[in-house]
């Protein structure tokens, strides 16, 4: 029952928020329902329910390994959202608040979906629900970004639907009775028709990869992250992408059961490395620090898919990375949002010396940058090291070398941009603009908390979390 609550509670909240009259008090729905959701999630996390194998929806190990991170990230972003929406009080926030909560509900559904169709529906519902959030600023640039997000994402939707059809037909052709729960598909295993499975894998990888933002399907990301409010960016990067990732993981387990695991792994590894390389090259040149975050997110999606390509240990490491990257990226997005608001521009060309204008946000931004580039003792360091170790254990020496090389290039790019905007003497225009922005506790504490979580996650990874990741890995890769 509780797993349904995870979905229903936020949706109810969304409905209430939509009905709520006051623009000033409506934002409080976000933290309240976020908190409720966190409580529910962690209650389920501590004592996980038994999931019936034929259930279409369930808090199974995979959901247990990822959903808490999303919920936590959402709560903190929600807390930030209250003060953010107070700053943006000139904009009506009815749609914004309602859809954010709706997204939380749909994310819970997507993470818990154990049925091909349900998973697809949830994922795409999230995609569509995110659309109005992207053009919250209602600038032409925002609409352009939304348009691209919509059509590229829509293509992704279409392809993943086609992929789902193919997988369904594979089961049908293999004598299945049309039961599309992952349990059934996995059970059918080698009975699935090989050509259809492979076609389905390619289509689903591209479709959900578009949503994850793997290169070369990442093109919507910089525009969307660059134009959307940073809180939306944080939730997209830390929440929505993870749904697509878990989708790929679930499909991967079916393909593995069908005996095509090695091909799937090869494709995952290659597309991951390619994404990292592309992202690193973009990072070397980009001059916009919000787009920079988008490319960094592409890079980390690459890391995730590389982890997924490395079997059990790699998947556990990747799930660890989902947590560490999501939380750290959140801190980066929120502090970047502060800097963006204070500076009035996201471009290195006009933003300088923010360490003098917004010292706290700048400090968080720099720390977050170091954290996300695997500086110990923050979370990403440990998770990426686990990925590296898994890769080496799997004998992927060359891939590891490329992986490290891309990390290095990305580090060059990120430090270049970050110190470019933090150092130096601010321009007078920036100075004037920054007068209107106050670093209140409301906009400083949430990113700080995220950084703290990332640190805690790295240094004192709770045994129960490791156990949850390992359980998820065994769920996807049952030990032969």
């Amino acid at each position, binding site marked *: 029952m509780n797993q349904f609550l995870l979905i229903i509670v936020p949706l109810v909240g969304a409905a209430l928020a939509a009905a709520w009259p006051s623009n000033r008090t409506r934002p409080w729905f976000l933290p309240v329902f976020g908190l409720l959701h966190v409580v529910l999630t962690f209650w389920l996390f501590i004592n996980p329910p038994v999931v019936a194998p034929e259930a279409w929806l369930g808090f199974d190990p995979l959901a247990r390994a990822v959903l808490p991170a999303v919920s936590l990230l959402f709560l903190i972003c929600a807390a930030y959202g209250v003060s953010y929406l107070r700053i943006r009080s000139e904009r009506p926030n009815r749609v914004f608040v309602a859809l954010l909560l709706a997204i939380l509900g749909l994310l819970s559904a997507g993470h818990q979906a154990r049925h091909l169709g349900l998973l697809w529906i949830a994922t795409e519902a999230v995609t569509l629900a995110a659309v109005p959030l992207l053009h919250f600023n209602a600038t032409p640039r925002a609409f*352009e970004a939304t*348009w*691209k997000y919509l*059509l*590229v994402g829509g*293509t992704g939707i279409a*392809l993943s639907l086609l992929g789902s059809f193919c997988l369904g037909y594979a089961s049908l052709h293999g004598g299945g009775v049309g039961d599309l729960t992952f349990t059934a598909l996995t059970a059918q295993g080698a009975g699935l028709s*090989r050509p259809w499975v*492979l076609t389905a*894998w*390619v*289509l689903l*990888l*591209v479709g959900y990869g578009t949503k994850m933002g793997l290169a*070369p*399907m990442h*093109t*919507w990301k*910089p525009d969307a992250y660059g134009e959307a409010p940073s809180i939306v960016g944080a939730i997209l990067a830390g929440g929505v992408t993870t749904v697509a990732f878990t989708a790929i993981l679930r499909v991967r387990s079916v393909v593995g059961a069908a005996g*095509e695991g*090695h*091909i799937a792994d*090869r*494709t995952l590894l*290659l*597309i991951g490395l390619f994404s990292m390389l*592309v992202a690193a*090259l*973009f990072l*070397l*040149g*980009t001059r916009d620090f919000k787009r920079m975050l988008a490319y960094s997110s592409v890079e980390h999606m690459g890391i995730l898919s590389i982890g997924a390509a490395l079997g059990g240990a790699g998947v556990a490491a990747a799930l660890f990375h989902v947590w560490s990257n999501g939380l750290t990226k959140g801190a980066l997005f929120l502090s970047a949002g502060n800097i963006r608001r204070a500076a009035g521009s996201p471009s290195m060309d006009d933003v300088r010396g923010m360490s003098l204008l917004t010292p706290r946000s700048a400090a968080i931004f720099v720390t977050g940058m*170091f954290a996300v*580039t*695997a*500086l*110990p*003792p923050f979370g990403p*360091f*440990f998770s990426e*090291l686990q990925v*590296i*170790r898994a890769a*080496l*254990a799997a004998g992927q020496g060359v891939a*590891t070398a490329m992986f*490290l*090389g891309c990390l*290095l*290039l990305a*580090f*060059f790019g990120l*430090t*270049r941009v970050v*110190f470019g905007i933090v*150092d*130096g003497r601010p321009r007078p225009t920036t100075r004037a603009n920054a007068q209107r922005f106050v670093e209140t506790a409301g906009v400083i504490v949430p990113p700080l908390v995220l950084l703290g979580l990332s640190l805690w996650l790295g*240094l*004192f*990874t709770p045994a129960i979390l490791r156990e949850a990741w390992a359980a998820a890995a065994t769920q996807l890769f049952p030990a032969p």
Partner: protein
Amino acid sequence: MTPGALLSLAAISLVAGLVSGLWFSRTWLAFTLAGAATGLGAALSVLLGATDWEWRSAFSLGGEFVHLRLDGVSAMFLALLCVVGGAGAVYAREYWSEEHYPASAPRGRCWWSALMLSMGLVLTISNGLHFLIAWELFAVSAFFLIRLDRQRPEVRAAGWLYLAASHAGTVCLFAFFSLLAARTGSWELGPMREQTALAPLFWIALAGFGVKAGVFPLHVWLPSAHANAPSHVSAIMSGVAIKMGVYGIVRFSGWLPVPHAAGWVVTGLGATSALLGIAFAFAQNDFKRLLAYCSVENVGIILIGVGAALLAVTHGDATWGRLALAGALLHVWNHGAFKALLFFGAGSVLHATGTREMSKLGGLWRTMPWTTGLFALGSIAVSGLPPLNGLVSEWLVYLGLFDAAVSGGPAAWAAMPAAIMLAMAGALAMASFAKAGAMIFLGAPRTQVAAHAHECGMGMRAPMLTLAGLCVVIGLAPILFWPVVARAVGSWRPAWVTMEAPVPLVTLGSVHAGLAVLVSAAAAWLWRMAHVNGLRRGLTWDCGYATPSARMQYTSASFGGIVSGWFRWVLQPERKMRRPRGHFPAEAIRLERVPETVLERILGPVSAVVIQASSSVRRLQHGRLQFYILYVVAGLIALGLLVLLGGAP
């Protein structure tokens, strides 16, 4: 007290310093000195005692149990860290004082404590994961120290270059430790010489630590970082921080099996760094850059010793290997002492004149007698001249090389060229420091700033005196330090442990002492004779030229001209000259700049290519939706082909 107790005291006081540094400079100094003293106590108690100190935690950090270990090797480096760190802290309070740098002084104090703490951790930790953590913290705190004065663009550039290079090294270390963990199945570090399968890992470690150590082709970050950092930071960077790279090489060449070629490569690298590093130093005009390049040379000397020791491990006998390694380890201390002293001296010159260009200085000995004397002493030490400490360690390395050559094995092929290159490096070092001392302190002031310099205060003088004292003591009584070095050598290779000095260090020390006495006696006597016979002051002989001016003095460029001519192939100096024309030439210009060859001539083009690639890739994100969808289709097709090819059994 046990080393453990002392170390925990040290850690506590450093943390207290880290906290208090933001507000109270005096308290910070007290805590830092306390930390340094206790740390030094711990190091010495291990070095003079017989047993290593080891501690395993009950709790786990990052999924691993904390495992600390202080043995001979790490204790040697720890002692150096404590001495230089403490001295630098004292120096910093006057040099980077609150009233001069209200903004950055507090930050500087905190990062200083952080740096000392993290380096201490690097030296004591014996678990791969935690080693990486401490290593990165150390790298980052050094980075923030370098860019203390971050309002200046060149400082920022130098800091970024350091960060980038250091991260490149760290990436190698990621690979190294992960491979180690993957092969051994745990992050635990310790002696595993018998697992010969691990030997190839040494190369990755060499690359990773070599960057930090500033070995010649990998030294690109070092000159600008040392030159642009505040001088006390340059001192600890050059005196201790780059030694962390040396520590890594020594440590893991001692714990892991080394490949057969390791000795050759390390010796070769060392010899190259020694010769080319000092050649670059001699060509510099910026005296802090000169010191920085000189650090490259000294790391080279250290590596020659280490390489000879590795040669002895692979083919050869322990006797000369032990000598070379002892020389190398002692040189780690010596270089730490005199290079920190020299950087402090440079700092007080910078403090007094505000310029790093030797061609704008001169004649400072009148206004800054203390600095002059101490700098001269440091120069004698760094040039490896008797009777100071520089010679002692170089002498040990030389003996190791000579014995290797005499032993006639294949190692001789490496030892003899190394010895010759070491000799040339020594001569060049002497030349460089004759030049530096002369250009800065002697002759006539070349500019107004040089004419109106002022001596540094006691706060900066005291640490210099301490370090100078250390140089003298090691020089005059090297035998006192032999047990320490022998202990370290013993913990590098237990088979090599020995207590009695295999070389007449006593004799060397007494000769040094006698020399010191005689020298001062002779100087005094000559001085007296001069006064007895009558002493007049007159103009310098100017060959009858009527109006000599300070600008007619030999400049640093002209002094180094001959040698930089010999090394033009690597120095590649850029010249801008206008020859004098006609009978009464109006003006003639000759400007010479020595570029960072490796950086500008090799890395520059490479990174240009990468940037080119990046910009051409970025052009794909041109905002046209149609193409974005095309990319999706392309991805679809590519993956489809991949699966088709992969699907083919």
